[in-house]
């Protein structure tokens, strides 16, 4: 039978989300004690990574600013927040959740512009999950006696929180919601390349009538983060970011009375058996490493394919990758957006070149990249072994290293053979094997026949050098209460 002679090539016309829904100010101050105030130090610019245009000028909080914020948080804690009933705290958090839902479109557009991620992801995943985290923890605020942490768990005091650039609003929600629910007040620093949704969140706090000083937002870079972590009146440190910085923080708080939780890097194994539901496994691989441009700590960056199915799997994977659309983050049809910064792009390029130099086979689908902005095509490296640097080091980009294995035990060995331990994926139609594998993998989050699924009720966090402590679920309360583990 002949193949079709038709000439219908389905072009998806550009479908841009309107930028006008969000109002970006030319400059922003720091959010301290319920108000925006000018920083005392320098300022810096935040740009859109997809176009390199300057979006706004943002203050860099210096030590004096950090001190002012911590003082405001302490005042608010002592005089207002720690005296408030859980039921009242919960109502503030419910208000915040609702306002995020009301302003969902603004937040999604702003996040995509500042971070570079596709609007479909910020609209369908980041913003709804952020609202859901506030909703979830709102419900715990007046039920702490049921958390399994004793009859009267107590907050820790002032929490210093430093978050990364990959899920700016969502990481803010993961930090602030449980902290406030448990009765703590916070000083939070968003990443230097993605401050804007945190600053919009400050407006939400105002709209919710949150008592001044309960939430303080300090923009800045590494210095600001160090100052927050080291401040003597911060009782609790929560950090999400690189393992390197996580180590530095652990050293800094040594010998002090500060509690600390860390959520760091990963090099997760996504393990596909020969009896996997193969089309969904391909989706899971794509989702695991190309979702959010691979800027995900729990990304499935090592594909462990059972040797008997590896060839078939790779040919389907390549075919699927050819349908990925890379481009304008505000285009609703974009699947893969921009790399967050020039710095990150350089790192990705460097490690990819190393991968090639070490002999792995490199492949990307043909794609046209825009002339401005920071872009990297989805890339796979085949013939990778554990000895390659691209199998051990976190690239934090849309780059997948493909290794093979023969038996379940070998898969477990290879998956666990890393200093990291954040997440893992298992693809098989056999229930007992999926559960056995899950019991053997040294990872804090195991996804079976799915990947990159998050929920406020589901605890998230790593083993080994991927950090300690859990965010989400009942377990996420422990980090912010005095009878908890940290």
């Amino acid at each position, binding site marked *: 039978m002949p193949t079709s002679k038709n000439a219908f090539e389905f072009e*998806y016309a*550009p479908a841009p989300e309107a930028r006008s829904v969000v109002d970006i100010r030319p400059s922003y101050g720091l959010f301290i004690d319920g108000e925006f105030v000018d920083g005392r130090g320098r300022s810096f610019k935040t740009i859109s990574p997809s176009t390199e245009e300057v979006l706004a000028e943002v203050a860099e909080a210096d030590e004096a600013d950090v001190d002012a914020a911590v003082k405001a948080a302490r005042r608010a804690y002592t005089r207002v927040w720690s005296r408030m009933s859980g039921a009242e705290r919960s109502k503030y958090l419910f208000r915040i959740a609702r306002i995020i839902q009301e302003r969902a479109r603004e937040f999604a557009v702003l996040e995509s512009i500042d971070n570079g991620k596709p609007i479909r992801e910020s609209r369908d995943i980041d913003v709804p999950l952020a609202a859901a985290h506030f909703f979830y923890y709102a419900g715990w605020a007046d039920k702490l006696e049921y958390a399994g942490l004793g009859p009267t768990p107590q907050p820790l005091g002032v929490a210093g929180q430093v978050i990364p650039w990959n899920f700016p609003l969502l990481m803010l929600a993961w930090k602030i919601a449980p902290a406030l629910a448990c009765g703590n007040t916070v000083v939070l620093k968003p990443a230097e390349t993605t401050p804007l949704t945190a600053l919009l969140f400050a407006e939400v706090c105002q709209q919710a009538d949150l008592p001044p000083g309960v939430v303080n937002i300090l923009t800045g870079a590494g210095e600001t983060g160090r100052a927050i972590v080291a401040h003597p009146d911060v009782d609790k440190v929560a950090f999400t970011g690189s393992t390197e910085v996580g180590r530095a923080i652990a050293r800094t708080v040594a010998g002090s009375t500060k509690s600390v939780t860390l959520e760091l890097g990963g090099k997760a194994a996504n393990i596909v058996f020969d009896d996997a*539901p193969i089309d*969904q496994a391909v989706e899971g691989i794509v989702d695991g490493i190309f979702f959010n441009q691979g800027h995900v700590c729990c990304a499935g960056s090592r594909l462990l394919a059972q040797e008997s199915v590896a060839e078939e799997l790779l040919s389907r994977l390549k075919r699927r990758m050819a349908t990925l659309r890379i481009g304008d983050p505000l285009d609703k049809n974009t699947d893969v957006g921009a790399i967050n910064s020039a710095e990150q792009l350089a790192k990705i390029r460097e490690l990819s070149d190393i991968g090639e130099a070490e002999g792995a086979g490199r492949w990307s689908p043909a794609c046209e990249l825009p002339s401005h902005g920071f872009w990297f095509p989805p890339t796979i490296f085949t013939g990778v072994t554990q000895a390659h640097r691209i199998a051990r080091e976190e690239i934090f980009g849309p780059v997948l290293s493909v290794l093979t294995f023969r038996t379940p035990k070998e898969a477990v060995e290879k998956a666990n053979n890393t200093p990291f331990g954040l997440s893992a994926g298992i693809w098989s139609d056999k229930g007992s094997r999926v559960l056995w594998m899950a019991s053997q993998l040294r990872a804090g989050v195991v996804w079976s026949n799915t990947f990159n699924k998050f929920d406020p009720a589901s605890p998230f966090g790593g083993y080994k050098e991927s950090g300690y402590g859990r965010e989400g679920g009942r377990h996420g309360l422990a980090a912010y209460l005095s009878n908890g583990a940290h």
Partner: protein
Amino acid sequence: MTTLKATAPSPGSTLFAQETASESALRRFLHGLPGVDQVGADQRAATLGTRSIKTTSKQQAIDLAIRMVDLTTLEGMDTPGKVRALAAKAMRPDPADPTCPATAAVCVYGDMVGVARQTLGDSGVHVAAVATAFPSGRAPMDVKLADTRDAVAAGADEIDMVIDRGAFLSGRYLQVYEEIVAIHEACARPDGTSAHLKVILETGELQTYDNVRRAGWLAMLAGGHFIKTSTGKIQPAATLPVILVMLEAVRDFRDATGQMVGVKPAGGIRSSKDAIKHLVTVNEVAGSDWLDPDWFRFGASTLLNDLLMQRTKMKTGRYSGPDYFTLD
């Protein structure tokens, strides 16, 4: 999981002769196909449904969708008058706009084929007839064969048959296979040509996506030209995840044999938005070769007016209303 070999079938032999030689061989083959994770398939379909198709692409997609419609009436109360009206609409869907393309076919009961044929003449719109004791399929084989032959003799271009779901669900795969092969033979005409055979799986009764994949492969092994989701007489009818699984099956079948098989969702597609989601799914799962009325059809009745309304809105810029389109 079987590794699918991509060689073309040699004339006079079947690539899958061994697999279809016995009940147990066929069962092993079908059960050896990769499983489908329902949650993952649903999610992929939902993501494909978020594609935003605008302006010129949307106009082209709507015209293509119109050209893919099998305009359908399958009611006990069908009469020659009803069928004539339907056929007239199929040829000229929008009386106010002669640039509007005709639909692919009309789809009627076998005893209405003659009336449809007469009305459609040489307009190029095909006549598709349901057969084999549609919709239940519960009748002796000689009745189903007679049903088919009569429709072909009356001038049907295409036959939409139903598989025996009772046999399928009780594991009698070889029986289902042999029935399809027999009906296919009954589609032959004296002049050597053959009516095209669409095989209705009735996915709503099969329920699991694993069953949809297996039934789809069964139909293709038996020589079906098209695999079709539903009779439209039960709920659920065509859903996007089911179409996704069927498109994966035809894609894999072409990889293994070099042959293309068409896909037809029927029932449950009422809006242009739904139709466009299906076209996006075809595009991204099976590929653009399937974006042609020869390889993809919509079994629908109310869909056509919604397509016409969207078409008109794109031309005039105004939202339209049902008064401006014919009810046939």
